[in-house]
């Protein structure tokens, strides 16, 4: 079953409209709308609700003062800032938001007033009648303004600097200074966002009789939301249940928690004794959820005559928005994963994480890796161009070789563990990619295209992705007396097919048909210990936990069956849900086999019978020794087990992408002719699901490279906060993805798997920059790129402001230099 591209177990529900997403729940619940700040930076002078009070259907209006009063009257902690989820010693100036703004707002969209009403229409009517007076303050928008620090986002945080961090291995500056050749690159990537089709949402119900709070939230981290709610609302955690229902995409944004709404909605439900629900609308998602990607970068490298890196210095200015709830994860990933499949020589990675009066920045699929990949791959292209070498040759010469695995970079990764690659075969991946895209024959094609007046270019990019980040995940596996197998894991799912993938693993381990396995994710009633879904970790973490739990169940089943069949357990196997003696043909009812359902019955000694199956386990039916206890001292009733998987460190997947683009000589329109992916995520559990993940990642990569950006004006207004203006790709913009796999198992986990979820998006911006540069003959240093921007670059290139590349596909080598590159040859 593992390795089979079976159809998904989730699909019959979802294709018939029977999915249950957040807003599909809670019919009849009270509805919430928020008054959000229209200013990027302002002091709240006054909130006047007088006009709003006579709206029919209004139930409650809450401001920060109500939170403070509630804290004073009870033991809640709502008037305190939201948690700093991931503290770090270098995050010297952290700042998190209040659930409702206190005195000051720091980005457009920050919640100021919460309105509860009988329906959403009425709640929005009420919001329209609430008058908030603001004293507008100067807004800090964009990295240049943040670095310049003429104005401060938070007056007590000097220079707008939340964190400054340096990681170094060897003396990079000295190595660069001593190198035969040096280059310097200035690069930039703009903001984008996860933008799942379903926004966030929270629905809470308080059972006053049972004193139990149940919260449904569209989250990637149900167990941690539960802990946060319990802490914030001062409800015993034992009385809090959090459930992630069907989640309509996450891509990172829903791993942040608790969002203000995740504590406010349950609080209102408890306070009002009514069910309360809030469903984020699209504009809210744009201005009050999270963004990512925005960075400026400087790369300095020193290399030898063959293009081998001797030293690399990488500086990053990272825009983290108004607050830092998710700590330094994104820039840490950028400055470590920048290294990709290469040996950098001496390395120095340094970043400044900066405040701006814009929406917070937290991981979006790839989580800092696309920016790191962009920096390294632009550098590789620059070195190739400088030395007049083929771009693949320079990469090949810098690869970590398979025999050098495990490879220790001597740096600390985002999980606090060493950046140690566990396995991988980068030369083999590159060979596969070159074959798939036809790298060696492209020059001929380009020459021919050029003769026809067309501009085409080819580009490639390589990445290594730390996946399966700890600390742990667990799983519970139980065989019911019907023979059905139920599995629960605590992390959540938002479209990755976890219920199918985990069922395949358990079916394989237990020897049962996959149709008999049902998986629950993200429901704290079923599994309370978990971390969450991020960093391409589910297959690695919950997959291995499920395998380990299933192995325990299998061992127990074999032990019970061996007693019943009076056969040594090592002579038994489980096939199709039946435990049987190896090598003996199946014969139902024979003394050589016993169905798992019966084993499940026998595993639970009973006093009372409620059906025929149970009767077989009652005290006068089972017999056995009258000296031994029915449940042995070290045993437990039930054919079930819980186990956990906790890895020593991350496992590192890898891949390489290539694209062929055509740029219109007149309009500068950029067309993707081909997109090729080779990918190594270790052993494949469900190849169809993995391919789907790659396709989706590439689509987001295409969006991030060619279309999507967050356009803020200087006052901090997000000008394109709608699907009309934020250009997410439609089918017409996304190419058909050609894929090939390599399977280099991870030695770190029992299944030998690595994560696959984020991979598709990581190298896309770098690939397109490479391909467009090749088509145009000058280097692209800033992404995303629109046709207008390419057109302007062409004009600057024609005016001699941008140096030409020395070598291009289909062109005879000429004079040229990488843009902005300061060559210094000795």
């Amino acid at each position: 079953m593992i390795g089979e591209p079976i159809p998904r177990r989730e699909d019959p529900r979802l294709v018939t409209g029977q999915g249950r997403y957040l807003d599909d729940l809670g019919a009849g619940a009270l509805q919430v709308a928020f008054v959000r700040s229209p200013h990027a930076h302002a002091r709240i002078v006054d909130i006047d609700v007088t006009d709003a009070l006579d709206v029919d259907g209004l139930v409650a209006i809450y401001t920060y003062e109500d939170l403070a009063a509630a804290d004073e009257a009870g033991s809640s902690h709502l008037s305190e800032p939201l948690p700093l989820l991931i503290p770090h010693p270098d995050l010297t100036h952290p700042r998190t938001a209040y659930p409702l703004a206190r005195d000051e707002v720091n980005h457009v969209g920050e919640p100021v007033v919460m309105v509860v009403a009988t329906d959403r229409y009425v709640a929005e009517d009420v919001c329209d009648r609430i008058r908030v007076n603001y004293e507008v303050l100067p807004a800090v928008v964009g990295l240049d303004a943040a670095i310049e620090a003429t104005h401060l986002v938070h007056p007590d945080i000097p220079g707008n600097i939340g964190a400054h961090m340096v990681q170094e291995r060897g003396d990079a500056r000295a190595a660069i200074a001593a190198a035969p050749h040096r280059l310097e690159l200035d690069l930039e990537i703009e903001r984008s966002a996860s933008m799942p089709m379903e926004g966030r949402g929270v629905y809470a119900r308080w059972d006053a009789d049972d004193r139990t709070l149940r919260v449904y939230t569209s989250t990637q981290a149900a167990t941690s939301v539960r802990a946060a709610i319990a802490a914030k609302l001062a409800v015993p955690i034992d009385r809090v249940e959090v459930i992630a229902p069907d989640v309509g995409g996450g891509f990172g944004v829903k791993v942040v928690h608790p969002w203000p709404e995740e504590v406010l909605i349950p609080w209102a439900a408890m306070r009002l004794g009514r069910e309360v629900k809030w469903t984020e609308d699209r504009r809210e998602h744009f201005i009050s959820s999270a963004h990512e990607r925005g960075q400026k970068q400087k790369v300095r490298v020193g290399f030898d005559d063959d293009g081998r890196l001797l030293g690399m210095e990488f500086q990053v200015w990272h825009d983290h928005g108004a607050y830092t709830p998710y700590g330094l994860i994104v820039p840490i990933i950028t400055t470590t994963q920048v290294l990709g499949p290469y040996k950098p020589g001496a390395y120095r990675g340094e970043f400044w994480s900066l405040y701006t009066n814009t929406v917070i920045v937290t991981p979006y699929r790839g989580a800092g890796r696309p920016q790191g990949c962009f920096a390294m791959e632009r550098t590789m292209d620059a070195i190739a161009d400088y030395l007049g070498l083929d771009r693949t040759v320079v990469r090949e010469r810098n690869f970590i070789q398979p025999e050098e695995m495990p490879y220790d970079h001597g740096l600390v990764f985002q999980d606090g563990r060493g950046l140690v690659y566990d396995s991988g075969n980068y030369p083999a991946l590159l060979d596969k990619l070159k074959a798939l895209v036809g790298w060696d024959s492209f020059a001929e094609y380009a020459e021919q295209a050029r003769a026809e007046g067309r501009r085409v270019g080819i580009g490639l990019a390589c990445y290594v992705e730390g996946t399966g980040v700890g600390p742990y995940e667990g799983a519970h596996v139980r065989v019911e007396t019907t023979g059905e197998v139920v599995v629960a894991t605590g992390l959540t799912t938002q479209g990755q097919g976890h219920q199918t993938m985990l069922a395949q693993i358990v079916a394989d381990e237990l020897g049962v048909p996959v149709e008999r396995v049902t998986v629950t994710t993200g429901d704290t009633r079923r599994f309370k210990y978990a971390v969450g879904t991020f960093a391409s970790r589910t297959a690695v973490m919950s997959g291995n936990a499920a395998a380990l739990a299933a192995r325990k169940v299998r061992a127990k089943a074999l032990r019970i069956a061996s007693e019943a069949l009076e056969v040594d357990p090592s002579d038994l196997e489980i096939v199709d849900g039946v435990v049987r003696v190896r090598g003996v043909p199946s014969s139902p009812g024979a003394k050589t086999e016993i169905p798992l359902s019966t084993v499940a019955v026998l595993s639970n000694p009973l006093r009372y019978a409620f059906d025929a199956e149970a009767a077989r386990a009652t005290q006068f039916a089972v017999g056995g020794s009258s000296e031994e206890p029915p449940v042995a001292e070290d045993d437990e009733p039930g054919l079930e087990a819980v186990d956990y998987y906790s890895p020593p460190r991350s496992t590192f997947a890898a891949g390489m992408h290539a694209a062929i683009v055509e740029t219109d000589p007149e309009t500068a329109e950029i067309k993707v002719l081909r997109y090729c992916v080779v990918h190594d995520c270790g052993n494949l559990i469900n190849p169809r699901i993995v391919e789907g993940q790659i396709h989706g990642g590439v689509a987001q990569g295409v969006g991030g490279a060619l279309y999507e950006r967050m356009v803020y004006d200087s006052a901090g207004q997000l000008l394109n906060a709608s699907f009309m203006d934020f250009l997410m790709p439609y089918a017409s913009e996304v190419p058909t993805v050609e894929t090939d796999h390599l399977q280099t198992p991870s030695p770190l986990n029992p299944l030998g798997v690595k994560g696959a979820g984020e991979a598709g998006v990581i190298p896309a911006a770098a690939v397109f920059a490479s391909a467009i540069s090749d088509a145009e003959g000058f280097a692209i240093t800033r992404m995303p790129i629109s046709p207008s921007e390419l057109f302007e670059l062409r004009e600057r290139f024609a005016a001699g402001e941008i140096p030409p590349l020395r070598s291009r596909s289909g062109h005879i080598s000429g004079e040229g230099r990488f843009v902005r590159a300061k060559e210094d040859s000795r």
Partner: protein
Amino acid sequence: MTPDRGPTEQTHDISLTVNGVLRQARVPARRLLSDCLRHDLGLTGTHVGCEHGVCGACTVLVNGQPMRSCLLLAVSVDGSEITTVEGCTDPDGSLGPVQRAFMECHGLQCGFCTPGFITTIAAYLRRNPNPTPEQAREAIGGNLCRCTGYQNIVASVLRAAEIMREESGDAGVPAAGHGRGERA
């Protein structure tokens, strides 16, 4: 911006034939068809992704034509026949051809946009039962999906056409009468 409202909002009685069943609702004039279907009639298969008519998740068939239910007022379609994703099954309740194709081709991941694609494709294949791959891609060009990269949705369009041809027993002739979703 919502208009100034009196103390109680005026409501209107409307009748819709939804997936072949006559349904009645009492709604304010400003009630969106998407909200009416989801919250008044309990048909939550129709999803709302943007509420400004761009993503297509809320697409339903109004008298057989794909329309964005987030851009329609419920009162404006009083008396219409509506088909939602719930109505795109075969008459016996099993998966309809487009639904089956999505499952076979891994045409969905999170499933949130899927209902809008299924209704759109069901209507499209009635008009063009034998699309080329290029036409299949064009047919879904007005719907956003953030998960799949569309490749497997294009494959689903082609596979659905194939299923419909197989079921009609005629390789080249337009299939007809496949479930309520395909009925005008």
